[in-house]
């Protein structure tokens, strides 16, 4: 078997060491660092991109939060405006109503006073007429001339009741 031919051992082992050493040098100094570098760069790139994506997402979230805050603020402001306007309108309305009530009650009281005056006037007119009629009647019926004062007294005694 050629494998056990000791005469060939030295040449095989010599070239094995030479070629293996050269290959080791080429691998360790040139080939493997390059592969390692490429793999590392890829890993770094992936991590960078992930980081970038995460940062962009944070930014988006912040923008959304800001937008929502602004929206809420605007809604609050609008509601405050609406409330203020409606309160103002209600207050004005109340004031107008009060003025109107006052005016109406004044008119009512004026009218009542006028009616009372007219009634008093009328009452005095009636009393005078009654006393006149009473004097005429007594004169015509029994021929007695009654004093105006006496007739007035008698009438007011009856009407005043």
């Amino acid at each position, binding site marked *: *078997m*050629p*494998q*056990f*031919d000791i*005469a*060939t*051992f*030295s*040449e*095989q*082992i*010599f*070239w*094995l*060491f030479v*070629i*293996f050493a*050269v*290959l*080791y040098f*080429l*691998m*360790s100094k*040139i*080939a*493997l660092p*390059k*592969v*390692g*570098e*490429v*793999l590392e*760069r*890829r890993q770094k*790139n992936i991590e960078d991109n992930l980081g970038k994506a995460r940062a962009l997402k944070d930014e988006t979230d912040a923008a959304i939060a800001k937008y929502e805050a602004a929206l809420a603020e605007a809604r609050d402001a609008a509601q405050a405006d609406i409330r203020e306007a409606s309160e103002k309108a209600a207050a004005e309305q109340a004031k107008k109503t009060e003025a109107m009530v006052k005016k109406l009650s004044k008119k009512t009281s004026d009218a009542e006073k006028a009616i009372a005056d007219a009634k008093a006037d009328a009452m005095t007119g009636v009393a005078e007429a009654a006393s006149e009629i009473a004097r005429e009647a007594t004169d015509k019926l029994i021929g007695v001339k009654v004093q105006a004062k006496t007739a007035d007294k008698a009438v007011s005694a009856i009407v005043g009741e």
Partner: protein
Amino acid sequence: MAGPLEQFEIKPLADLSVGGVDISFTNSALWMVIAAVLVTCFMTLSMRRGALVPGRWQGAAEVMYEFVANMLKDNVGSAGRKYFPFIFTLFMFVMFGNLLGMIPHSFTFTSHIAVNFALALVIFVGVTVIGFVRHGTHYFRMFFPEGAPIATAIILIPIEIISYFSRPFSLAIRLFANMTVGHIMLKVIGGFVGLIGILGVLPFALLTGITVLEFGIAALQAYVFTILTCIYLHDAIHMH
């Protein structure tokens, strides 16, 4: 028809000798050079662009890199990191040697015990040196595990010593036997194909199957050689 052992013959291509030692450049050395050149081309040309998204060749080179790196990490841990170039070179050199041997009329330098044993001895001596450098005389503990009853020493120590020193032999002989037997088998069965006429289709079918198997073995034995080296390295760095 060449005999089944002829394929293993060492043929000098250029006679050389230094100080009486024969260092002729042989067919074995030629195929080592071819393997080394192919490994170098594979690992450098494919990475030339160093693309972020790898192409087919770059992907293959990266797969080999990560395969060996993971093998080393899983078996040795991070302390094995600095031996990565050696382990990688070993794996690629042995695997390319095995696979190139599958080319008809080529030469399988890993089918030679001298080559395998020289590699195994380098690994054995290297690992032992690493062990003593890291642990000093405590490395002798390898031969008597911590916690074993002292009475078992008389049996354990010889067993551990034998198992430790048989490492280079088992490494070298396993690879030699696998490569040699596979190639002899292919040659013998291949011989039948022509000899028995039309019935030759049967050994031919068998030959086809075995050829596929041999490709598997070529890769597998390189893997076994490398992973055993990793395990020895683990022992040297972390003890048992």
